[in-house]
């Protein structure tokens, strides 16, 4: 019995590793196709110009903002019970941000010109503001994570082996020159208080920044007056709440299944609390979706209501009913209500929330584009690039798989190589 259990313990990581390698290799094929043939193999069109990658970008950047805002509960608002997951939340936010940028970079018609948003950005464009804000956010995120990790890196840098060398190299000269405390590797008098103060200040700056940049993503859609479906003042708020739901779900899932000591009561408390936060946010988001859908459908103004009918009963209604409603809302809500103290169940529910949120993002991006801007425009000129039907092409899926594999690999590398889940004595209760 014990042998079988041990075998299962070694088999599961092996299978997961194999899956990851296959995903990375298959994804790489898509990336090569994308780089070699440009956008020729894509499924989006001139009429539905944004597709899976834009939805994935919005989804991933929402995960990032959500994970970051949850980290501020700890570092800024002093929710000490969540203290052990603070660094993990920050790192998750960073990985999701990088994955989001990779996804949207692939979507650009001219990938080599991305820098123009910095050199000749248009201050009237929400997209330019979004880029500027998440650039600031990424700098802040790296700095905050560094200061949050510094104490543990100091402790680890004295250890032999790869992890010690990695910690020492991450500290580097920068650490000694700019750190507020004078602690160096192996210094027994190291005091984390000063570092924590910096983390608190950075986190406090990060709160409006994260709200601005992810609210900005909502505004990016909301300001498009030409698209009745998107043109809703509720969008920035919905995007923020959506970010918290999905980010909270992802964090809960990670804490539930990747925590080193998973059988302690403290772990159960943390997971349970995160599960309840996710449930509350899920209910709030469902309320907002109800507000948006019910009012739009009741008003029945075609520009806004027709796309909604496409969501509810168009060519792909299962994206809404199966993924967004059933797997993304109802099932996790029932689990979180019925098994609030079960780590496994809460983790599973949280995974469902986080993963299926991609469907929610797809249901925002695509329906806004499915209605012809002028009646009859869909029949004015027949061409495969002028159709109002969209389903992602194989290349699009492969690139998305690549982005997911890279993000998973980065996360795992950080999880193993960095002291993300080592509680510091100074702050752990």
């Amino acid at each position, binding site marked *: 019995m014990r042998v079988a259990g041990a075998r299962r313990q070694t088999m599961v990581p092996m299978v997961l590793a194999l899956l990851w390698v296959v995903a990375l290799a298959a994804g790489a094929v898509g990336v090569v196709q994308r780089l070699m043939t440009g956008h020729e193999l894509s499924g989006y069109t*001139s009429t539905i110009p944004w597709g899976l990658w834009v939805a994935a970008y919005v989804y991933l950047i929402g995960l990032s903002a959500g994970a970051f805002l949850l980290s501020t509960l700890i570092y800024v608002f002093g929710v000490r019970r969540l203290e052990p997951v603070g660094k993990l939340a920050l790192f998750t936010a960073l990985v999701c941000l990088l994955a989001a940028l990779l996804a949207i970079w692939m979507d650009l*018609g*001219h990938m080599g010109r991305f820098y123009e948003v910095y050199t000749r950005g*248009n201050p009237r464009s929400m997209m330019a503001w979004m880029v500027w804000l998440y650039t600031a956010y990424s700098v802040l995120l790296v700095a905050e994570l560094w200061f949050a990790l510094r104490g543990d890196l100091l402790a680890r840098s004295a250890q032999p082996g790869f992890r010690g060398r990695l910690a020492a190299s991450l500290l580097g000269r920068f650490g000694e020159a700019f750190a507020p405390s004078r602690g160096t590797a192996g210094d027994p008098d190291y005091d984390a208080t000063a570092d924590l103060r910096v983390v608190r200040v950075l986190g406090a700056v990060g709160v409006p920044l994260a709200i601005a940049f992810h609210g900005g993503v909502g505004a990016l859609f909301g300001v498009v007056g030409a698209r009745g479906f998107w043109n809703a003042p509720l969008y920035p708020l919905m995007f923020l709440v959506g970010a918290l739901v999905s980010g909270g779900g992802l964090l809960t899932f990670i804490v539930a299944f990747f925590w080193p000591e998973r059988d302690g009561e403290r772990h159960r408390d943390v997971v349970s609390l995160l599960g309840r936060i996710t449930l509350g946010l899920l209910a709030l988001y469902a309320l907002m979706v109800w507000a948006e859908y019910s009012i739009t459908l009741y008003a029945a103004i075609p520009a806004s209501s027709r796309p909604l009918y496409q969501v509810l009963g168009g060519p792909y209604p299962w994206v809404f009913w199966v993924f967004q409603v059933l797997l993304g809302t109802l099932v996790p809500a029932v689990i979180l209500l019925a098994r609030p103290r079960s780590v496994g169940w809460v983790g599973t529910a949280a995974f469902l929330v986080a993963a299926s949120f991609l469907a929610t993002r797809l249901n925002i991006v695509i329906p806004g584009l499915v209605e*012809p801007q002028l009646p009859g425009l869909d029949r004015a000129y027949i061409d495969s690039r002028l159709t109002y039907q969209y389903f992602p092409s194989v290349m699009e899926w492969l690139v998305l798989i690549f982005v997911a594999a890279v993000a998973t690999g980065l996360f795992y590398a950080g999880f193993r190589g960095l002291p993300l889940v080592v509680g510091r004595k100074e702050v752990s209760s």
Partner: protein
Amino acid sequence: MATRTSRRRLLRGLAAGLPALAAGGALAQVGVLKAHEKPKSNPLPGDPGEWRGQFFQQALAERANGSAVETPVKPSELPGTAAVGQDAPSAAPRAAAALSEKADLVRMQEELRRALQKPVDQRKWTMVIDLRKCIGCSACTVACKAENHLPPGVVYRPVIEEETGTYPNVTRRFLPRPCMQCDDPPCVSVCPVGATSKRPDGIVVVDYNACIGCRYCITACPYGARYFDFGENYTDGTPRKEPYEEAPSPEYGREWKRDRGKSPVGNVRKCQFCLHRLNAGMLPACVTTCVGAATYFGDKNDPDSFVNELITSGRAIRLKEEMGTDPKVYYLV
């Protein structure tokens, strides 16, 4: 019917005139202009037919860039055009209508030239489309495709068709849809790098070398008038590209050779009222090609312009006025 008969007359005249041209008589009369030679005559002589011929010579020579260009036949030499600028002869009304259409083109050409003599910020290029004259032939769509060398999926001027009623009482209506060249264009403000802008003369342009291909402007256009160049060709899947696909597009007065990864592939593209033709003194391709003579073009800032007459006729409407985009394309209904 009237249009058809008059067109037949015109074609008969052309057929009669061409052999004479081939024999060299007409060529000797109007001369052959090399690209590097400038026309010697007065740019705006009294006879509009004459100056139009010379003007086309000059414009074609500029575009030919070094190659010899034969002058087109003087319009005044073509049967049926002698009355341009004069009172119509006492012929059948259908012939008068045909002459009127030609006179319209000549008048617009003259106004275009007049506008070009003004500073660019004092022009306001405007298009008027008479929906009662549009026959839905899509010649404008094809002419635009040919003029701008547009790839598959990029159609600057589709013609929307609408069929109402039930047999036998059926009506079809046609609505050509170029870019509206909005005075307050929503596509301009959303561009993250300012690659799309409104020129002083009101034409909304795209800087192909700056556009990053994010396609935000496509979502922001209320008229669906922007397109992404996916890099596809009509001959994809065949052994080689056809010469017409290799030829560069003359948009914005430059030569844009389509190649994978190079602009305009990967860019957003749109109608720009054939800016390169305007700068060469020519009307947009859709205007000169319009079979029903339903498309008018001119400078709205010119109080005597044809387009101003039409806009103030009481028949003019614009699409989606409620959006506040202030389009510069009017429809006569």
